[in-house]
């Protein structure tokens, strides 16, 4: 009799614990930027699960064609409960109502939006609501090769440089009278527009006006575009392929160019792939209208179709919270989106990272309205047309504008 009672208790206990522990299961997706980044993500999720035993997280990294896969999953109502949204296509997701606004959750859990750098959070604001919490960011900086500067007796760049300082240094740092493989150039250019649209902002121009109309044939835009492409025509700047490199950071790392305007993402590459290179980085030079930069950021967002919005928010709150941001910033791969952490002691000996962070306050997000991708593609074609096709910059931009106007109807 005693045994039966004991058994009953045990069975009941078994069932109750099973019910109590039945965890909510959520899925999280991001692109996969290599095994270290994936391992870092798993580490963060494990820490979250340890703190929240009632939530199980399944990590589903997407190695290629991230956007395509997310689009199809959203259309099929099968999207992960938390996923990365790049600022560049965030407007499309927000405008079509694919994402869940986070304001109510933030109020409930007392998350103050002002702890995040405003330039970053603004990328995920639409009609007054917040649709994503920036997880990290990058801006553009001016990388310089100290050895080449020393060799040509040119003073290192400072954050107070202007466009004319840049051009003057580039011409002093160009040496093309020897064998082709020994040629050195002042600057490497990149055709991907976000690499050089900072110049437009430094010239007081815009890509898209606040009302959504195009500003790429405004004089401010045209002048900046002409300044940038003229560096190439004058022979003091090159494309990576001209010096046998695939990427801008490789042309710089191989010592074929003295300077590169590149995102902070090049810092880990330069340290790991070019350990002997003597280099540093400063804020971008100032244009005729002062400072300007582009911030590249990615959010954690929740799709409207999720069945577990509460659990999804809990995960976002954890991932973008202070404890976790400190964990990932010390990993050396990313910069924190919380303004307070810009002063973290980890950055005391990292002038390059500090230069990247200094660009945030005066940056604009890397997004160009609902037609971001078309806008970027058309501007890139205009750049190609000038560099490869030897077309006049203004003519190339007018063509881009007319193509875009048709597509944006």
């Amino acid at each position, binding site marked *: 009799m005693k045994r039966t009672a004991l058994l009953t208790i045990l069975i009941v206990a078994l069932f109750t614990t099973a019910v109590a522990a039945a965890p909510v299961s959520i899925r999280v997706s991001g692109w996969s930027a290599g095994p270290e980044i994936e391992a870092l993500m798993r580490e963060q999720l494990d820490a979250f699960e340890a703190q929240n035993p009632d939530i199980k997280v399944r990590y589903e990294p997407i190695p290629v064609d991230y956007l395509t896969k997310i689009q199809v999953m959203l259309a099929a109502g099968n999207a992960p409960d938390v996923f990365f949204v790049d600022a560049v296509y965030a407007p499309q997701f927000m405008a*079509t109502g694919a994402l869940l606004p986070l304001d109510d959750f933030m109020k409930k859990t007392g998350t103050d939006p002002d702890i995040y750098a405003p330039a970053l959070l603004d990328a995920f604001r639409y009609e007054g609501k917040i649709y994503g919490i920036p997880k990290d960011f990058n801006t553009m900086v001016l990388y310089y090769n100290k050895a080449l500067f020393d060799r040509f007796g040119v003073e290192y760049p400072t954050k107070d440089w202007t466009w004319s300082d840049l051009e003057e240094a580039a011409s002093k740092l160009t040496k093309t009278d020897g064998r082709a493989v020994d040629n050195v150039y002042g600057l490497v250019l990149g055709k991907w527009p976000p690499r050089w649209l900072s110049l437009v902002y430094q010239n007081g121009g815009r890509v898209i006006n606040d009302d959504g109309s195009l500003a790429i044939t405004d004089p401010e835009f045209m002048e900046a575009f002409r300044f940038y492409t003229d560096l190439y025509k004058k022979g003091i700047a090159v494309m990576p*392929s001209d010096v046998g490199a695939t990427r801008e950071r490789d042309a710089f790392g191989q010592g074929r160019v003295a300077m590169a305007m590149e995102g902070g993402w090049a810092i880990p590459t330069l340290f790991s792939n070019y350990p002997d290179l003597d280099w540093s980085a400063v804020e971008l030079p100032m244009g005729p209208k002062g400072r300007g930069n582009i911030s590249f950021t990615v959010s954690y967002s929740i799709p409207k179709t999720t069945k577990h919005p509460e659990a999804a928010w809990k995960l976002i709150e954890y991932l973008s919270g202070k404890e976790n941001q400190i964990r990932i910033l010390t990993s050396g791969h990313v910069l924190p989106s919380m303004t307070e952490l810009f002063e973290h002691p980890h950055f005391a000996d990292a002038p390059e990272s500090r230069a990247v962070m200094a660009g945030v306050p005066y940056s604009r997000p890397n997004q160009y309205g609902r037609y971001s991708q078309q806008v970027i593609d058309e501007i890139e074609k205009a750049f190609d047309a000038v560099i*490869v096709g030897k077309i006049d910059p203004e003519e190339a931009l007018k063509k881009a504008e007319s193509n875009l106007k048709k597509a944006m109807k």
Partner: protein
Amino acid sequence: MSVRSTDPYRRLNPTAIPYLFILPVILFTVFFKFIPIGVSLLLSFTEYDMLSSPRWVGIANYAYLLSDNDLFWTSLKNTAQYSLEVLPANIAISLLLAILVNQELKGVAFFRTVFYLPVVTSIIAVSMIWMWIYNYQVGLLNSILGLFGLGPFDWLRNPKLALHSLAIMRVWKGVGWNMVIYLAGLQGIPRYIYEAATIDGASAWTQFRRLTWPLLRPVTYYIIVMGLISTFQSFGEIYAMTQGGPLDSTTTLGYLVYQQAFQYWEMGKASATAFILFGVIFALSIAQNKFVSAEMN
């Protein structure tokens, strides 16, 4: 008798059994081909970004593409040019190869296999290898040309060269397939015809021109039709090697469909482009059919 009546297969209508065998294929075709094609036709009359519901816009997508869209017409031109470069070269080389591997030589099976290998290799793998061959600085092709003091050429990044570079690769990839078809055609021509021609004193060239080529005409027709369809749909090599660039010089209709759908979120325009592509291929096939039946009579 009793044995027969309990046999379940005997009780079925005899014509039902073949249908059962092809049922999986029919289901597959209906669910994964016909239904999506039908939905795509409907979508071509809508504006649809895959996130919000489709919005009916009538023929606006077709009007947009056909009236004032430079990129569409460039893509159509690129597609036609690509086919016109790939097909004749493919036919000439595959016929030559077929005649060669049709000889009774030792080890001919080895060559047949080698020439066929590119066909069974994935287009993406082939593209990766050819990107290396075409590489501006370290590529095999420029290294070889360099020995003769030629080049270097920027095969994939020069807007005047890129489409031709893709066409060369595509010919290399495709000749094995047509070689096999021509080989089958050649082996179907009775030997006595050639014997008779030899007795009549016809030279090898005359035999080819007067016998082989005309007798292979149905095969050639088949190759042209299938080749046009497949080159008009080319996508994989462009996606892997040039992404439609530089300066849209390699954007074909197939690639344009992808770009509209998955980069620009314009599923409606992408569907409309796909149906125009279908229309073009359909019209070309009809025209060839008319032309060939007139020829053959």
